[in-house]
C-alpha cells in the first residue's frame, strides 16, 4: 500500500551542469507551464489599460490593492510599492501551481518539500538581508530583543525569539507542503477505493467523493497561497519596520 510513489517523477531528459543534476521531469515542466501562465495573466491584464477596467485588469488591480492595503499595512509608505511585485509573483505562482496540479496527468509541484522549502528559504533570506540593510548589523541583532521588558528575563526571552525567527521558514514550507500533499493523498485514496470495489456501479460513489474533494482542494489551494503570501508580507514588514 505504497502511495508515495505517485509523487515521485522519473526524469524525462537527463542534463548535467558542472556535476549538478538538473534533469527535467514532469514536475519541472509543470512548474514552467505555471510560471508561463502567471506571466501571461499579468501581460494580458496590463495590455491597453482602460479607466473602467475589464476582467483581467480588474483581477490584478484588486490583488494589488489587497496586498498594498491589507498585507503590508505596517510598512512605511515609501517602501510599499517596491514589495508588491515580489508578493504578487509569489501568490500567483503558488496559486497557479496548486490549481494546475488538480488537472489529471499533471504533476503536483507544491506537493514536494523541495519546492516549498525553496520558496520559504527565499522569503527568509530576503527578509533577513533587508533587515540588515535597513537597520545595520547592530540593529539586526537588536531586533531579537523586544522593547519595554524588565532586563532579568532577557536570557529566557532572547533564545525564544531566535528560535521563533528560525522556525518561521520551516513552518511556511511545511504548512504549504502538507496541505497540498494531504489533499492529493485523499484523492488518491478515493481512487484506490473505487478500484478496490471492483464494480462499475458502486465504484461511482468514491468517484463522486473524489470530485468533491477536488473542489475543496481548489479552495484550499487558494487559501494556502494567500496564507503564504500574507505571512511572508508580515515577516518582511516586521523585518523592515521600526521597532
Amino acid at each position, binding site marked *: 500500500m505504497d502511495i*508515495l510513489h505517485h509523487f515521485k517523477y522519473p526524469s524525462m531528459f537527463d542534463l548535467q551542469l558542472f556535476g549538478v543534476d538538473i534533469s527535467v521531469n514532469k514536475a519541472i515542466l509543470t512548474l514552467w507551464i505555471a510560471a508561463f501562465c502567471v506571466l501571461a495573466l499579468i501581460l494580458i491584464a496590463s495590455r491597453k489599460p482602460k479607466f473602467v477596467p475589464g476582467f483581467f485588469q480588474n483581477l490584478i488591480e484588486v490583488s494589488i490593492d489587497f496586498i498594498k492595503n*491589507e498585507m503590508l499595512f505596517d510598512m512605511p509608505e515609501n517602501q510599499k510599492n517596491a514589495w508588491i511585485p515580489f508578493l504578487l509573483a509569489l501568490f500567483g505562482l503558488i496559486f497557479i501551481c496548486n490549481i494546475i496540479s488538480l488537472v489529471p496527468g499533471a504533476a503536483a509541484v507544491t506537493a514536494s518539500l523541495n519546492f516549498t522549502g525553496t520558496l520559504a528559504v527565499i522569503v527568509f533570506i530576503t527578509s533577513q538581508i533587508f533587515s540588515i540593510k535597513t537597520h545595520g548589523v547592530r540593529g539586526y541583532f537588536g531586533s531579537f530583543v523586544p522593547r519595554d521588558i524588565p532586563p532579568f528575563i532577557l536570557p529566557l526571552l532572547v533564545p525564544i525569539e531566535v528560535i521563533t525567527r528560525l522556525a518561521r521558514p520551516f*513552518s511556511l514550507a*511545511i*504548512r504549504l*507542503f*502538507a*496541505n497540498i500533499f*494531504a489533499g492529493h493523498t485523499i484523492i488518491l485514496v478515493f481512487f484506490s477505493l473505487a478500484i478496490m470495489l471492483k464494480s462499475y456501479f458502486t465504484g461511482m460513489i468514491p468517484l463522486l467523493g473524489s470530485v468533491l474533494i477536488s473542489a475543496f482542494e481548489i479552495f484550499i489551494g487558494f*487559501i*494556502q497561497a*494567500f*496564507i503564504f503570501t*500574507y*505571512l511572508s508580507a508580515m515577516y518582511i514588514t516586521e523585518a523592515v519596520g521600526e521597532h
Partner: protein
Amino acid sequence: MGPLTMSGLTLAIAAFGCALGIGFLAGKGLEAMGRQPEASGSIRTAMLVAIAFIEAIALYALVIEILILYK
C-alpha cells in the same frame, strides 16, 4: 503498539486538538462578525490566518506520521 498504531494515534490526537481550537476560534470570530457587521471583512481575514496557523500544527503531525510509516 507498533509503528502503525502509534502513527495513527499521533495524527488522531493532533487533529482532535486542532479541531477543538478551530471550533473555538471560528465561534468567537463569527460572534464578533455578528456584533459588528461593518468589520466583517477584516475579521474574516484575521480568522482565516489564525485557522491556517492552527491547521499547520495538525499537519506537522501528519508529516511526522509519514516519516514514521515510511522509515
